[in-house]
């Protein structure tokens, strides 16, 4: 059918009864507006309107802030940590998700439970648990020293490594669940077809399975990355003095310096980056549908 006939048909058709199901979204929508959108907008508007000075002065200050050593370092650190965390979580999560799609029985339930259960635990509790494990006199170091593998406790915490371990752990479920959803959509008969056509296991994986799981890989990576760049608690508790991420910088601007305009400006940049990444994520979700994933 051509577009012309379609639109003609639409014009001729009687007006469809109003769809009231949208009303179901009203409570959620109201909550979002009141508790998320309104405070956010107010925060930005008030901060910028209360700025006493000319527009030129404002732009100057903004430029100074966004080009300041502290901000640029935090920006670099944030992106670098997010990148490493995303890669780590992908490497650990991919085999887990694959296992979940293929295995059956008690094993699956145990793995799912151990992935989902931490979700129900507070992120602070989880981070403190890691501190118990990774501290100078933590479980890991005690075992290492007692077994004679190392002479002195390893610096596992209050440095970059601690941040990476803590964040990877917290973000792993997002990756696994996203990958799992994408992998479940891969038709298993395609793998049989590949085998019947003479493809070895690794050839089938790289030529069929991995490309088909790629939308899941990209979505999972983006979700983890988006969450990473806004991370606060884990780097604040487990990081060292060189692991200042943007969220921590914002916190300092508010709590220590009481510099609301700087905090607002940094928040805004973070928000813009997140929204851009989210747009990419949305596109990928769309692509996944196009590829014919169920």
């Amino acid at each position, binding site marked *: 059918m051509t577009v012309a006939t379609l639109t003609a048909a639409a014009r001729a058709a009687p007006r469809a009864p109003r769809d009231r199901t949208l009303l179901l979204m009203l409570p959620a929508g109201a909550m979002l507006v009141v508790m998320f959108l309104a405070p956010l907008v107010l925060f930005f508007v008030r901060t910028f309107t209360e700025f006493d000075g000319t527009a030129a002065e404002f732009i100057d200050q903004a430029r100074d802030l966004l080009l300041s050593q502290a901000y640029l370092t935090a920006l670099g650190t944030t992106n670098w940590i997010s990148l490493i965390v995303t890669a780590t979580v992908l490497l650990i999560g991919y085999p887990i998700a694959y296992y979940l799609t293929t295995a059956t029985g008690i094993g699956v339930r145990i793995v799912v439970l151990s992935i989902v259960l931490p979700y129900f635990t507070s992120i602070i509790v989880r981070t403190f648990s890691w501190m118990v494990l990774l501290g100078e006199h933590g479980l890991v170091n005690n075992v290492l020293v007692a077994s004679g593998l190392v002479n002195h406790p390893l610096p596992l915490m209050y440095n970059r490594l601690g941040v990476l371990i803590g964040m990877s752990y917290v973000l792993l479920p997002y990756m696994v669940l996203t990958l799992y959803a994408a992998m479940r959509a891969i*038709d298993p*008969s*395609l793998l*049989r*077809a*590949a*085998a*019947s*056509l*003479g*493809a*070895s*296991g690794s*050839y089938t994986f790289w*030529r*069929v399975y991995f*490309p*088909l799981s790629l939308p899941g890989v990209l979505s999972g990576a983006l979700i983890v990355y988006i969450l990473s760049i806004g991370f606060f608690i884990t780097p604040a508790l487990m990081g060292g003095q060189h692991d200042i991420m943007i969220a921590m910088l914002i916190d300092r601007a508010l709590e220590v310096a009481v510099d609301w305009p700087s905090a607002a400006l940094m928040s805004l940049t973070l928000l813009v980056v997140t929204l851009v990444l989210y747009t990419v994520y949305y596109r990928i979700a769309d692509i996944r549908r*196009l*590829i*014919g994933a169920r």
Partner: protein
Amino acid sequence: MVGPEPRESQFHMVEMDTVLEQRPTRAVVAGLVTPAPIARAGGSAIELRGLTKRYGEETVVDTIAASIAPGEFFSLLGPSGSGKTTTLMMVAGFVHPDGGTVLVDGRDIAAVPPQKRGFGMVFQNYAIFPHLNVFENIAFPLRARHWAKDMIEARVSWALELVQLTRFADRDARQLSGGQQQRVALARAIVFHPPLVLMDEPLGALDKNLRFEMQVEIKEIQQRLGMTVLYVTHDQEEAMSMSDRIAIMNHGRIDQVGPPGEVYERPVNPFVGRFLGEANLIDGTVIAEGGDIARLRLSSGQELRAPRSNSRGPGRGMLFIRPERVEIAPGTVASAEPSANVLAGRVRRCSFLGNILRYAVDLDGAPPVTVDLQNAAGVAPLPVGAPVVLRWPVADSLILAGDG
């Protein structure tokens, strides 16, 4: 259950030799080099020996045996749950048999994994790779075998031409219609010249006209390439129109094996008779008699004669006759004839099916008999209730043991 396996396997040996002589196609393919491990130019001989598969308590495939000749189109036909797909999957290597062996050209392939068996396979849902275009889908088995680029190109072009998809080489696989996807699946399964192609209800998802078209096409390609095909279907017309021989499966066993004409005309039991098309099965008591012809006494006291399908003694039995073999004429007098069965009845119903008129005729104290009449010029339907005489040659009917 009738299972004359020993007799049947002898029968196959004869059949195999004649098939070998009849096929000129092997020479045609002889020039093409096939690097497949179990390959030979043309097709392989396949033998299933006592193949068995159990899932828990249930025996899905029960010690089946069959010999498939090189270049033969062999169908497994049966209702769903009869074990035909499981059998195919055991040959493909995806299902591990609990007993028995699969021999390819005399070699037991039990230890060979699916990807090393070198068979082509067409799946029911086509299993086209959605992220590859038509060309790459068909090139897949060649790339997996690390063929040289120009050889891949030449062979894929050949396959594309074979299935008439040359124009669609660059098309996204997802944009193809069902019929086109089917062709891609077929091309992909034969592009590397496998000695055996396995097909699992490949036309099940297509509409009727397209299905018929594809039947002809698959059959032509199979004959041209001389490949051995093991074909699974539940559609008896499809099996009959394409196969050299059909194995009718029921409850995990092969009830009968033979060329389409033979299994259609001379079923070994009522199940086979019914499964291959419309069949009249008239209940009665078998009266033993010397020679090949036996008599069947109906509850009304009338007697019918027919050749026996086996040499079982007297007892319950059924007379089998296809609806198109019964003549129907208006009238009441049913005079006995030496070489025909004659019965009087009344028209109960007449259905117009386009090419045929299908009558249901009431007999005394028996379920109605179905009669098919070709819709020829000058044929007018008989009115309901009209007295009619049914007549069919003794040799066209068969007396079956009454089980099944």
